[in-house]
């Protein structure tokens, strides 16, 4: 696993940040904007090949290096049945404002941004970097993109299509979603407070999360069995609204139930839930009610977005990784920003660093378009 976010430039820094309850947010420094919402930027140096102009790609390659090192693999994977499945939002669009402004103004624009875009499909880039010859797909499912990418990777492995899949996602902090989410009035001017009674909205973030998923047989043959694994994935659509979750939460509940069935476990076997928890009024209310229905009022719930902000296409993968790390470490961090329970949500989030003991945990993702995804992460004992 490899993780880059405002919480840390790698997994070790991230755990340190979680343990300290530190929240590294501030003003936007990456580009000029008249919007002054606080954001979570990544401040570690990104040293990927200069041919990749996209910050998203640089973030992903940084996480990829950490993930490959952890899996004891190098970048040359030719000869193996390797797939790549990456989620993103920003990197899928030709949204270069300078290019477009030039075209609009002059009827002509340098083609470099177009060339860069056409060479910058996230999955194609990662596949080229690791010389993967299997399927390569960039999942563009908005905020559940990388959770769904992990789900697709699981299907490839279970279907015998691949022995190993590089899965995850990334998104840079970018002016387009900053303006877009701003127009939807979902930002908070303060540090976000997932699940809190007085939550005011989300903070945008950036980052990348990459997992090396491998079939048990392949890992055993390499002598590289991991102690954590993806046990189940469920996805279901709300078929309700482009930007708002279905009020009864039935889509999310179906996704969670499917993931539990696929993992072959019952809700009491889940020792905590790493919720999507964006800190918007709607998301947390719908999600919290679903989690209470499925896991009961005593469920341990947290949102790590208080440490990373909402990293959009990276969120599902980063949070799956944080979930796996918590199972491994035996603790979850305080759900940063949560103080007061909301009467409209039957459950609250954890207020302090909390010990967890168990084999399974769930990570949920909700997205524009009515996508709901749930991943069950397991730990071998």
């Amino acid at each position, binding site marked *: 696993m490899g993780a880059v976010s405002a919480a840390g430039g790698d997994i070790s820094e991230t755990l340190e940040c979680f343990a300290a309850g530190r929240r590294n947010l501030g003003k936007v420094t990456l580009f000029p*904007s*008249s*919007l002054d919402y606080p954001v979570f930027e990544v401040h570690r140096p990104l040293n990927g090949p200069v041919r990749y102009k996209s910050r998203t790609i640089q973030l992903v390659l940084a996480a990829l290096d950490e993930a490959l090192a952890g899996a004891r693999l190098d970048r040359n994977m030719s000869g193996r049945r390797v797939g790549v499945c990456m989620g993103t*939002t920003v990197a*899928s*669009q*030709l*949204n270069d*404002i300078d290019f*477009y*402004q030039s*075209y609009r103004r*002059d*009827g002509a*624009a340098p*083609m470099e941004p*177009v060339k860069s875009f*056409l060479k910058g*499909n996230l999955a*194609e880039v990662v596949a080229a970097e690791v010389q993967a*010859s299997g*399927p*390569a*797909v*960039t*999942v*563009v*499912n*908005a905020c559940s993109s990388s959770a*769904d990418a992990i*789900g*697709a990777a699981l*299907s*490839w492995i*279970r*279907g015998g*299509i691949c022995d190993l899949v590089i899965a995850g996602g990334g998104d840079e902090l970018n*002016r*387009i979603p900053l*303006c*877009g*989410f*701003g*127009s*939807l009035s979902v930002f908070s001017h303060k540090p976000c407070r997932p699940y809190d009674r007085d939550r005011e909205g989300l903070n945008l973030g950036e980052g990348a999360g990459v997992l090396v998923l491998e079939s048990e047989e392949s890992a055993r043959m390499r002598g590289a069995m991991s102690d954590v694994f993806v046990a189940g994935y469920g*996805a*279901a*659509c709300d*078929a309700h*609204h*482009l930007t708002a979750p279905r009020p009864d939460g*039935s*889509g999310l509940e*179906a996704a969670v139930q*499917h993931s539990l069935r696929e993992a072959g476990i019952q809700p009491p076997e889940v020792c905590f839930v790493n919720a999507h928890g964006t800190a918007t009024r709607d998301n947390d209310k719908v999600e919290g009610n679903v989690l209470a229905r499925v896991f009961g009022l005593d469920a341990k719930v947290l949102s790590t977005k208080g440490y990373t902000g909402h990293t959009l296409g990276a969120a599902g993968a980063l949070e799956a990784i944080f979930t796996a790390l918590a199972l491994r470490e035996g603790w979850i961090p305080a759900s940063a920003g949560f103080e007061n329970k909301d009467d409209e949500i039957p459950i609250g989030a954890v207020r302090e660093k909390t010990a967890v003991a168990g084999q399974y945990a769930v990570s949920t993702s909700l*997205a*524009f*378009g*009515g*996508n709901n995804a749930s991943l069950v992460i397991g730990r071998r004992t």
Partner: protein
Amino acid sequence: MNIAGMGIVFSRGRGVAALEQALQQGWVAPSEVEVRGLTNRLSVYAVSSETLADKTVLAKARRADRFVRMSVLAASDAVQDSGLSGKLDKKRLGVIIATALGPHVTTFNFLDGIIDFGDAAVSPTAFSHSVHNAAASYVAMTLDVRGPTLTMTHFHFAFHEALLLAGAWLQEKRCDAVLVGAVDELGAVMEYACGQKSRPAKDGRIRPFAFSSSPETVPGEGSVFFLLTGEPAGAAYADVVSGVFEPGASPVSAGLMLPDNFGMSGDESRYRDAVAGVARAASYVPVFGSIMTGSAFHAAAGALVLKRQMCYACPVQDNPHGVNICRETVAGPVDNVVCLRLDCRGHGKTICLKH
């Protein structure tokens, strides 16, 4: 995996009947558009606004853009065409949409808002519709799909990968049926980029069998959807699987080979060896235009070939390399059709359709 129903929206109309008519009719001249920044008018195969005027099917997509509308109509038609509309368990129905470029027209509209009005005064509607999975969302809302929905991009093989994942979903019983589609649209900026980066066909004819190192293009747009089931059901066009073609591999054995060279991936001479020696080949790319997810349109044509047991004549028959192409529309047994797309390195993917 079985194609139980099919829907298509393209420059020649909407639905399987329009596809069949277009394949029988052959090549027609594209329309011409003025593109800011290009000195010559550009030939394109654009979907007309009349084709997208269906207030009933699009009732839930009134505010949606062309990208969404093309997708919703094609997806809805695929379900109707299958005859399975009332029989599908919507909680066990999935949607996978493949696109190369996404809803870029709406993305640029959103950028207009930033440039003209500033960061704090942009349109939330434009933003929410600029997200790639808006089309899948509208498909789900229109058809009340409650299973998994996924949108994916790839510049060469998006539709092939969508088929592969659909097969996995059916195999692992995640879904009973999957709506798998492709969509890409025309727009001024992309037309400008296309005019700069590729060689527009001066006479409006794409010549697939020229296997040119600098091929000519006629940009196109549209959407194709298949309703796929694990077992034969509904209108049952063909079995379909996505496969891999390695550089230097033996020629693909096919009753009918449809090379997917569409003019936008540079040098097409690498197709020559892959197609050499096949029993019969055809290309219907000149009917659809140059579309990055064009393999889906070719697969739709191939499915119709198998269903009708009819090899439609190549719409443009320039054939300097002597490939055994379909020169006339003829009835006759066709057991399988293979669509072959190669990337710029010569790596390829196939869509194999079997009767």
